Structures are given as structure tokens and as C-alpha cells.
């Protein structure tokens, strides 16, 4: 407890059990750290994850051995894929029982190995302070990620007495994350950027995680080139800036994907050329020189070869680039840039997203899911913290909720974990109790962690839940519509959905059901006026709606997109 307190921990998300009971007893006897009792360990990891993504601090989880540990695995993998700092403490059976298949024993270190940044098992109680200190350091520095500490029950025996000792500073000889970029590479990057005619800045989650949004904006004040964000990078660049192209990739905007494909220079900042971005790597941006800034050297040239690799913290690297550009005698060709921008605007005019769908009320028709997000955007002045689950609703939020601040968009991008949204929203709400926190979800995802509605009641977390209800696993169904000749294998529920309004009420909250577009704004207004209550807004939408654009796969490039049903561009 003392080691955790010294790391500035305010909340622990967890669930008790035999092997963790000594720790739970110590928790009971102190007042500095509040424990949030979830209803399932997956909820604990996602809640800690939401807390970590929104604050930038490590989220802390405490679970027991065996099933407690295995239930935490999905949340660990989620955090690992999106580089979120977590410290997950798992109880373990007593040291002498390890390996004997004892009650609630599982090899947590082994099970979690591929999905953690690092892990520790405690062999001596006196190591605990040092290990906790190192775990927080490793989780939060370099490319962040989850760290597991597995603690056999006898290591937390209250009768053990030892001197509380840990080093004043951390020095791990095998772990020295790189901070400053190589000046020679920065010079090359500046030259390449300033000499380009069709550049694009492709900024990812690394800009958010590395707190480098301000620096990115400052860089683009200088060079004024088009910017696109990955799903994880949204919020790192002002959406209203005329140089902003929106999200790129699988469901990115037409103009962003076309700009990437036709660029002569791509400046990737804290992005990892994920397969949801590049489409077929061999066909990716055939004429582009690639400059790649990343804190993780293994992310560079993993999928797309970088012509100019830059290893360093995003903030430091972008600052160095700004300095270099200011010094440089090369002037970017503004005429070429203007031409490039008009080409991009032309693409946008052709197949850009329509952000004004909400203004047109479709009477006697089902609500468009896009309209729900647009109405939500206006109801919250674009200022809410939004968490989401995974599927069509997630993509609609990414496309239509114009995030204007980093960290406000909390979603599982890498692993794509359904069930993430509600517990993540709990973590965000605890970190920012005065702010509006909305979980946009679907009737499929929400049922994967719905038990956390009970946690929300216990701790008074007035989250707003917007359930975009299309009565089907929408994204699966979309693929089945497009690729499997409309065979909806296991993607619908055949009238077995719960009444979400009554379900919310059963958990002690408020529920609204919306079926008409003209009621949407009223219901949102009412829901947001109920400051101290969790409100579950169940919006029935048009189940036939698909997410577009969509990259054509397999064997497509970034220029190959479906822009509407039966319409390829």
C-alpha cells in the first residue's frame, strides 16, 4: 500500500479473492487510496484503462489468483495493443503451492506474457517496494504498456517484518527508452518535408499518448500541410482546421485515404501503419517518401519501410523538427501545396462525409445512426469525453464526433474489445467527475460488460450511455451483406434483446427509449440535465445502414474504397 501511495495512486479497480485478501485487509486500514469494486475483473482492467487513457497516469488493478487473473486478460490485451500504462497486481497462491495445481492457481506470468510490456513475480517480500516502483516506471515511460505484478499470498503476510527499502532513482540497465531524436535524421526529415509537393502528416495515437498535440499544431502552423488522424490519434489536431482531413484507413474519409495514396511525402508521427490503415502494404502510397517518428524502434519499418526513421519521444522529435524547419533555408513550395489542397478539396466535394445529416428530419423513417452521433455532438458542444465499444457505432463516432482535445476519445482501437466502453467510462468519470462522460455503444457490445451498471450505482457515477441499437451485430452484418451474400450467420438475436430501459431501471438508473429522429435532441437535453444520474438512452436506428467509406479488401490499395452501398470509387 505504501509503495502504491508513493506512486500517487488514487484509485484501484479490483475484485477480492483468497490470494489477495492480505492486500485487501491492508487496503481497508488506510484512507489514501480508494478501491472501486467492479462486478467482473474485465471491468476492472477496462476501468483502469479508461482512467489511464484520460489522465495519462498509470491505471491500477488488483485481482485475485486463478479466475481473477484470467478474467483480467482481455483488459490487459486491450491495454497492450493501444499502449496504455496499467499496473495489474494479481494475487497468487502461496509460494510453496506454486506448480501443484492448487485451488485457484494459474500461471499468470505465463498466460499474460505475450500481452504485457513486462511482468514480475515476487519471490521476497522485501522486493515489493522496488518492484512496484519499477513497474510504474516501465508502464509509463517509452512506449507505455501494461505491467503485471504477481504476488504469492505468503509475500503479503502481515506478520512478515522487513525494512521498507527502495532505490532513490530507477536504473534498469536493460531498459533505457530513447527520448531525443537523432539530429541528422531530423535534418533529413525537415529537408524532405520542405521539398515535398504533396505532403501529408499522418498522426496517430502516439501524439495523444506522448502529450504532443500542441507541438503537432505548432509544426503545422509552420508548414501548413494536410493532416489526417488515425482512430487513436483523433483529438490531437483541431477538427475545424481547414487542413484537417479527418480519420484515415478502413473507414477513413475519402479525401484522407486519397491524399495518402497520392502523397509524395508521408510524415508519420506516433502511428504504426496498422493493417487497418495501409490496406495491402505492397500497394501502399506508391510515390511517397516515408518519414516515421516513433518512440518504439520496432514500430518503424515493420510494415512499411521508412525512408527516414526517427526514434524518439514524439514531443521531443516534433520540437526538434520545428527548430530545424525554422533554421532551414528551404521554402516549401506554396503553389504546389495550394494545388495539392485543391485536389484534396475536390476529393472531399466528391465523396466527403456529410456532417449535416441531423438537420434533415426523416419523418416516419428509422433514425440514421450517423444522426445520433451528430445530435450527440451538438448536444455536448463537442466537449464530452466519449468512450465507445467496438463496431459500427465506434466508426460513426470516429467519423462524426469532431474531437477537439486529445484524450477525450477513449476506445479500443488495436484489440477491438467489445465490452470496453462502459467500464472505461467509469474510469474517465472518476478521473474527471465534473465533466460529461458519454459511452456510445451498441446493443451487442453493451451486453458484454453490462454488469458494471451496478458499480456505477455503488459509486455514483452519472455516465450517459447512448446505445445505438440496430438489433444486430452491425459490423459483422455489414461484412456479411457485402461479402457473404447477405447470409446473416449468428449476427442477429431474433427478438431476444432485453428491454434496456427496464434493465437500466432494475440497476437503479434511468432509461429512455428513442425511436423517432425528432425526439433525439429533446431526450439528449433531458438526459444531460439529469446531472447526478446515470441515463441509458436506447436509440433504435436503421438496421440496414452501413459504415462508409470502406477500403476494398483484400488486394486493394488506399485509393480503392466503397463510398456507398454498391458504389466503388
Amino acid at each position: 500500500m505504501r509503495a502504491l501511495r508513493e506512486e500517487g495512486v488514487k484509485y484501484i479497480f479490483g475484485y477480492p479473492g483468497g490470494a489477495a485478501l492480505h492486500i485487501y485487509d491492508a487496503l481497508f486500514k488506510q484512507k489514501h487510496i480508494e478501491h472501486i469494486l467492479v462486478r467482473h475483473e474485465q471491468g476492472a482492467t477496462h476501468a483502469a484503462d479508461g482512467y489511464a487513457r484520460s489522465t495519462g497516469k498509470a491505471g491500477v488493478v488488483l485481482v485475485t489468483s486463478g479466475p481473477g487473473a484470467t478474467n483480467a486478460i482481455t483488459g490487459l490485451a486491450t491495454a497492450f495493443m493501444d499502449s496504455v500504462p496499467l499496473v495489474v497486481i494479481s494475487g497468487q497462491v502461496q509460494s510453496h503451492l506454486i506448480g501443484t495445481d492448487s485451488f485457484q492457481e494459474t500461471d499468470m506470468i505465463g498466460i499474460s506474457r505475450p500481452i504485457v510490456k513486462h511482468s514480475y513475480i515476487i519471490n521476497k517480500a522485501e522486493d515489493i517496494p522496488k518492484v512496484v516502483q519499477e513497474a510504474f516506471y516501465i508502464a509509463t515511460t517509452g512506449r507505455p504498456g501494461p505491467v503485471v505484478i504477481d504476488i504469492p499470498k505468503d509475500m503479503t503476510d502481515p506478520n512478515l517484518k522487513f525494512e521498507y527499502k527502495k532505490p532513490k532513482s530507477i536504473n534498469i540497465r536493460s531498459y533505457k527508452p530513447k527520448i531525443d531524436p537523432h539530429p541528422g535524421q531530423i535534418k533529413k526529415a525537415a529537408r524532405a518535408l520542405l521539398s515535398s509537393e504533396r505532403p501529408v502528416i499522418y498522426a496517430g495515437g502516439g501524439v495523444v499518448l506522448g502529450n504532443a498535440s500542441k507541438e503537432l499544431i505548432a509544426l503545422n502552423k509552420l508548414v501548413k500541410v494536410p493532416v489526417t488522424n488515425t482512430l487513436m490519434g483523433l483529438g490531437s489536431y483541431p477538427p475545424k482546421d481547414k487542413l484537417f482531413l479527418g480519420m484515415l484507413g478502413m473507414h477513413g474519409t475519402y479525401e484522407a485515404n486519397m491524399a495518402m495514396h497520392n502523397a509524395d511525402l508521408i510524415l508519420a508521427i506516433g502511428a504504426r501503419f496498422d493493417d487497418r490503415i495501409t490496406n495491402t502494404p505492397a500497394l501502399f502510397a506508391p510515390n511517397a517518401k516515408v518519414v516515421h517518428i516513433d518512440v518504439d524502434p520496432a514500430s518503424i519499418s515493420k510494415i512499411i519501410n521508412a525512408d527516414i526513421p526517427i526514434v524518439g519521444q514524439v514531443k521531443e522529435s516534433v520540437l526538434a523538427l520545428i527548430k530545424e524547419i525554422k533554421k532551414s533555408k528551404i521554402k516549401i513550395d506554396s503553389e504546389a501545396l495550394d494545388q495539392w489542397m485543391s485536389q484534396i478539396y475536390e476529393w472531399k466535394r466528391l465523396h466527403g462525409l456529410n456532417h449535416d445529416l441531423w438537420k434533415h428530419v426523416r419523418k416516419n423513417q428509422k433514425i440514421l445512426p450517423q444522426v445520433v452521433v451528430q445530435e450527440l455532438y451538438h448536444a455536448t458542444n463537442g466537449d464530452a469525453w466519449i468512450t465507445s465499444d467496438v463496431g459500427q457505432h465506434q466508426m460513426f463516432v470516429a467519423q462524426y464526433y469532431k474531437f477537439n482535445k486529445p484524450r477525450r476519445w477513449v476506445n479500443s482501437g488495436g484489440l477491438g474489445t467489445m465490452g470496453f466502453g462502459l467500464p472505461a467510462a467509469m474510469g474517465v468519470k472518476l478521473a474527471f467527475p465534473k465533466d460529461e462522460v458519454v459511452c456510445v455503444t451498441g446493443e451487442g457490445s453493451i451486453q458484454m460488460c453490462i454488469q458494471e451498471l451496478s458499480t456505477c450505482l455503488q459509486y455514483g457515477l452519472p455516465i450517459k450511455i447512448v446505445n445505438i441499437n440496430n438489433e444486430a451485430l452491425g459490423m459483422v452484418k455489414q461484412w456479411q451483406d457485402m461479402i457473404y451474400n447477405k447470409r446473416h450467420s449468428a449476427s442477429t438475436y431474433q427478438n431476444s434483446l432485453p428491454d434496456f430501459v427496464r434493465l437500466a431501471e432494475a440497476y437503479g438508473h434511468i432509461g429512455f427509449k428513442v425511436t423517432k429522429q425528432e425526439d433525439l435532441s429533446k431526450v439528449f437535453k433531458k438526459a444531460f440535465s439529469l446531472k447526478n444520474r446515470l441515463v441509458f438512452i436506447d436509440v433504435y436506428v436503421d438496421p440496414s445502414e452501413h459504415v462508409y467509406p470502406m477500403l476494398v479488401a483484400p488486394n486493394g490499395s488506399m485509393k480503392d474504397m466503397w463510398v456507398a452501398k454498391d458504389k466503388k470509387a
Partner: protein
Amino acid sequence: MKRTLAVLIENKPGALARIVGLFHQRGYNIDSLNVAPVFDESYSRMTVTTQGNENVVEQITKQINKLIDVIKVSDLTEGSHHEVEYVLLKISTKQFNQTFKRKLKYFEHHIIEQDNSIVVLGVMGNSASIDDFLKSLNKKSLIELSRSGCIGMHKSEKHLTI
């Protein structure tokens, strides 16, 4: 193409599993693996041989380096280096004939045990020639075989130490 990587890794429980797991997790193969503590017991030196083009091996090297317990990684194949492997061979004394001995003479070797029925030999050489040597033997003549896996080191002035 065959690649030989040398890795310095903290001598901590589970460290080896992290390396082995990484190969599997990222779809790479381990052809041979040798590991033992060196110098002060606080760290081990590992030699891993694997297959892959330059890009694949660069990615493997980076991913290994990313493991917190890994102190240093070096692709020995990048420059000139020494490579050696040691083999224990058990054959029947009857098979330990002139033909066999002729093949043996290209290798540093010694007899560890010999009696009327069994000969145990220690044979040293680089992995490729050992492969060839073993292929040239009649499989039935071999009773038991144990290979150390390749161990390697940079030539002359280039060092891999902490």
C-alpha cells in the same frame, strides 16, 4: 537465409521464456538455441539461429531488444564472426570403423568413452559442416545424438559485452 543472433539477457526467472515466446508469438522460427550465464551470473548469453531476410531479422532483433530483460542484441551474421557447435555422438563400436574415422578427421574431436560395444565421441565444428557430416552417416549407425546448438561471437575488435 540463416541468421545468428547473440543476446545478452538478465539472468532472471522467466527471461528465457520471454524470448522463446516472442519467436512463437511473432511467427518466427528458432533453428537452434544456446543459453548459459556468463561472467557474473547476473546475465546470460544466448545464441539463437533463425531464418529470414534482412527485414525479418531486423524486426526480430528490434522485438527482442524491446523485451525489458534484454540488455543487448546483435546480429552476428551482419559482419564476420566465429560460430561453433559441439556434438555428442553415441555409436556402436562396430560402426567406429575406418570410413567413419575418415569423415571425423575434418573435425576437432575426441573420444569420451569407449568399450567393446559403445563409443561416445565429442565433435566440434561449425553448424553447417556438422549438418553435412551427420547427413553423410548411416542413420542406423547413430544410437544417440546431442547438439549444443550454435554459439557465436564477433571476430577480433568488435565486442558484445555490457
